[in-house]
């Protein structure tokens, strides 16, 4: 008798496609995963679609249009488990920079006819709209962590994605601290682990693409960063990138608004 495989769906909202591409980037695991789950909706990879309900929905991207705000409700209704993948889905992404500006001005800068453009004033995380069962961080997510999340789902266990800071990953990697060693500003102390301390391993400071760790002390880090010569505007900008709308980063950036 044929085994019933769980149905996997992949949904895209406002994003660069990089996180769903991460699944196609699991070159060694892709065909194995495709054997274990039924890929029921993954338009980037296949025209064939299967009707819901779905056992696992992976959601990439943020909500930026009235239509998408309705679409996520429909997706939630037909998904047993819903996980967000990446900074856009988890915090609103780089496009959440509009949350600090006037989106009509933004549209007028890019488009001659901004009135043709349907968009919301904000870019928001999926969890601000529906219940999310698990959030995978990163801009982009790590393929290693993605395989872990899918394996955990298949085994019926919780995914192992440590919530500590990038600093811990630097210690594990045996890196020299770029801040102490070279005076290079680094967001590692407040940033969620997962990348394996990539930037410090390449002699640059972490720029926070995994978003805030659990209980970060951003004001303390900012005090150290200003001793390294960063002014308020630089501090505001450093927290306002790919996770600008994540609570801890948003508040800290607002503290340095002129």
């Amino acid at each position, binding site marked *: 008798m044929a085994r019933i495989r769980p149905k996997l769906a992949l949904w895209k909202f406002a994003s660069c496609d990089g996180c769903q591409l991460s699944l196609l980037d699991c070159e*060694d695991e892709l065909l194995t995963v495709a054997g274990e789950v039924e890929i029921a909706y993954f338009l980037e990879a296949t025209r064939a679609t299967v009707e819901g309900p779905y056992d696992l929905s992976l959601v990439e991207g943020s909500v930026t*249009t009235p239509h998408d705000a309705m679409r996520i409700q429909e997706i939630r209704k037909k998904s047993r488990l819903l996980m967000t993948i990446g900074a856009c889905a988890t915090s609103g992404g780089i496009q959440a920079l509009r949350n600090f500006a006037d989106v009509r001005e933004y549209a007028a800068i890019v488009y001659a006819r901004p009135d043709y453009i349907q968009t919301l004033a904000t870019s928001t995380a999926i969890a601000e709209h529906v219940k999310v069962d698990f959030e995978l961080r990163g801009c982009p997510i790590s*393929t290693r962590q993605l395989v872990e999340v899918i394996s955990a789902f298949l085994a019926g266990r919780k995914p192992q994605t440590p919530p500590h800071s990038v600093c811990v990953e630097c210690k594990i990697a045996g890196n020299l601290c770029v801040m102490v060693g070279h005076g290079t500003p680094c967001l590692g102390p407040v940033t969620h682990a997962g990348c394996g301390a990539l930037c410090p391993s390449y002699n640059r400071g972490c720029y926070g693409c995994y978003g805030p760790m659990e209980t970060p002390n951003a004001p303390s880090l900012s005090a150290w960063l200003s001793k390294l010569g960063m002014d308020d505007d630089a501090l505001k900008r450093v927290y306002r990138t790919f996770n600008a709308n994540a609570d801890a980063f948003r508040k800290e950036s607002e503290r340095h608004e002129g």
Partner: protein
Amino acid sequence: MKVRTIKVDQLARVEGEGALRVVARDGVVQSAELNIFEPPRFFEAFLRDRMFTEAPDITARICGICPVAYQMSAVHAMENALGVVVDGPLRELRRLIYCGEWIESHTLHVYMLHAPDFLGYEGAIEMARDHADIVRRGLDLKKVGNSIIALLGGREIHPINVRVGGFYRTPRKRELQPLAEDLKRARDQALATVRWTAGFDFPDVDRDYEFVALRGDGEYPFSDGRIASNRGLDISAVEYDEHFEESQVEHSTALHAHLKARGPYLTGPLARYALNSASLSPLAREAAQEAGLERVCANPFRSIIIRAVEVLYACDEALRIIDEYEEPERPAIEIEPRASTGFAATEAPRGMLYHRYQLNADGKIADARIVPPTSQNQPSIEEDLKTFATAWLDLPDEALRHRCEQTIRNHDPCISCATHFLRLEIDRGG
């Protein structure tokens, strides 16, 4: 009057979200519209007031498939603004990381997105049930491209090691050596890919395109060269705005680019090959010849062979760079900002990518303009549909719809990039 409408509401196997609407009246296609409904993200707006050093990391996020192209156009435009030329081993390393992106992105498109159309599958995973060895070869080849980007850039998607002036850290010669072994295997796989794709059934169609691409000075272009066309265009990136214009259409959140007073043009593999085939490596040139490619190919369905040839070239070029590599004295040139304007065009896998930045004296961006390949190709894609679909109107709806989707996929559109893209609707009347 007999009217027939064919719609595709969500185009699959393209990067991003788009749809297509084709309207036929009395057996003739009247219009073909590629609707891009990817939500706009306003990159040019929020780049304002960021430092010039931040552009490579920010613009990478426009596209998860070709972030290296965005980083390369950004760093070259900034260096153009600030009067710096990055040469020697640093330039070679930039070519090497671009080789990685061409191998990764082209192989993804050839094996996972485009080949299933020719072999009658819904996608690569379905194709793998009958052709597991072929799909594994594709995945293996793609992985080698990704490992170049991961080694030089830190990771495959949104690399962290590219900066204005060079890199944060440059590799030791011995770090590159293991890549050479993988690349020798990849080169054989790429050659097998050229032969495999050359055996597909192609519709016998041609279009009279104006091909626009960088023309390298004796080398196949990544980031350097003049912007040239097969109809006499020969300009530097600085002159781009004088010759090209963008307009907005109601059915798309992507702007459409045209050559002023001339109209649609095509960028990408067909254009690069038409203007640069003589500069391919001997192995890639021979493979192209063996695959039956003339010096210019105007059949967009055969673009899959040219992508395979470019993957072969990228493997060869990467091997050359690794072999000749000498470690640079420092990883980057330090650059001081000043009030200035900079321009650059580089060759993303799917076509030319233009960036222009205006900088203030303190190095902050006053104005940014980005013209992605799909904005440039969208009018030509619509022309392809108008030209080809009339001959296909006898096909039943599902077959016609599939043919139209394939016509779009020929150009590997990157919709996330262009928004700043697909549903298919065919209106046949009656």
